[in-house]
């Protein structure tokens, strides 16, 4: 089952910290879904740097849903 981190409605840097903690627990190939209120470009940079695969979509209600897969 995919783990979901709902980081909406939290003051920065809490969403970033939550996601970093969650991805640290992922094993290679495991998947994580993150829900946020906006596109997290700084997080994307760290995911790029550390070799994580990710994709995102902006839902009709404005929620940003990000799927992250560990390298």
């Amino acid at each position, binding site marked *: 089952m995919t783990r979901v981190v709902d980081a909406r409605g939290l003051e920065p840097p809490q969403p970033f910290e939550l996601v970093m903690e969650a991805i640290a627990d992922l094993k290679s190939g495991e998947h994580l879904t993150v829900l946020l209120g906006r596109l997290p*470009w700084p997080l994307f940079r760290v995911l790029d740097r550390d070799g994580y695969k990710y994709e995102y979509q902006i839902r009709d209600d404005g929620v940003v849903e990000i799927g992250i897969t560990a390298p």
Partner: protein
Amino acid sequence: MSTMGHALGYDAAPAFTTPARFFVTAPLFGVVAGLFLLVAPDLLASRWTPGALALTHLITVGFMLMIMVGALFQILPVVAGAVLPAANAVAAVVHASLTAGAAALVWGLAAMQPDVLLAAAWLLGFGFTLFFVVAAVGLWRAPVSQATPRDLRLALICFGIAIMLGLLLAMVLARGLGLPLFTLLKLHVGWAWLGGAGILLAATSWVVVPMFQITPNYPDLVTRYWAIGACTALVLWSVAVLADVSYAELMLVLMLLALAATYTITTLRLQQRSRKSTADSTIRAFQLGMASLMAGLVCVLIAHYHDHAVWPILGGVLILHGGFVSVIQGMLYKIVPFLAWLHLNQAGLKAPNMKKLQPDAPIRKQLRSHMVALAALVVAVPSGSTLLVRAAGILVLVEFAWLFKNMIGVIRAYRLARDA
């Protein structure tokens, strides 16, 4: 539809020092503004005195534009996903030309030195154009998936127009260029205040208010149409000013004021619905800013019907010092420690708690000094008392010196954490 993640150029992200140099320089122009009031209290007799023009530009260019440009070097990558080419080198050049340009502008206006004024206009024009080109390259490459990047583009275009009008004004004053001075002046003020500063403030608010103040998002209708509406109204207003159709001009001024009021009221309403248990200093600074903007707009409206010189000056004080400076300071206290934290984290270092990078107590005290300085200005301006204006000058000086000290404090905490 989902979008695959793509490399954003992590290494191209600007260093923390890139915006920091702007944040440290800007308060020094505020300190000089306080000194101006202290040394020459009669400069507030009219908004057209050389001293009043110099004072206005110390705040609008030296403080506001400096911080806005510095912040954009970081906001564009963080909020809009835009990667600015050669950001660190470009920032050094832009910072140097904006600093020299702002200083020359103030000197040229205060001493009415045409050549210095012209040099200032070219320096500012060069610095801003360089920034504009780099920001445009970054923004045009960035995905326009949310309202903020689009509105940031609009704000940059409006700033560009305001600076071009400023350049023309300098040519009229320094070289006797045959253009109507008062018309140019009106257009310059309109495009700089509502066009550049206003749209930039709104576009930043769309993100910063819900993000840091934990409010619901701005209504779709506002984020989708406000900035485009303001730009359209500004274009129509400019046509009315150029064609000298005073009835249409007044109608469009009212429309622009209504748009500004819509932004302030929406922001205040959202803040009332903040999920934060207690209103922090930033929310208070925003509330002061919004209330001052509203009061300033009323003064501008009265100034349209009433000839007394006090109304435009009071309007200027309330909009610039009360409105923009309050909100900018409030945003700085959220953005700067967050950026310091983010940079430490992205560098793989252990970042201390944000409260350690920027403790609450100095923020509260500095913002209180800002509030006292604003109150003193609001009392001093209509009183016409040189003693009160001097006292307000000292308070303005203290307020900005304190902001400078707090900015240095975050940078020092960042360096300590980085080198630990």
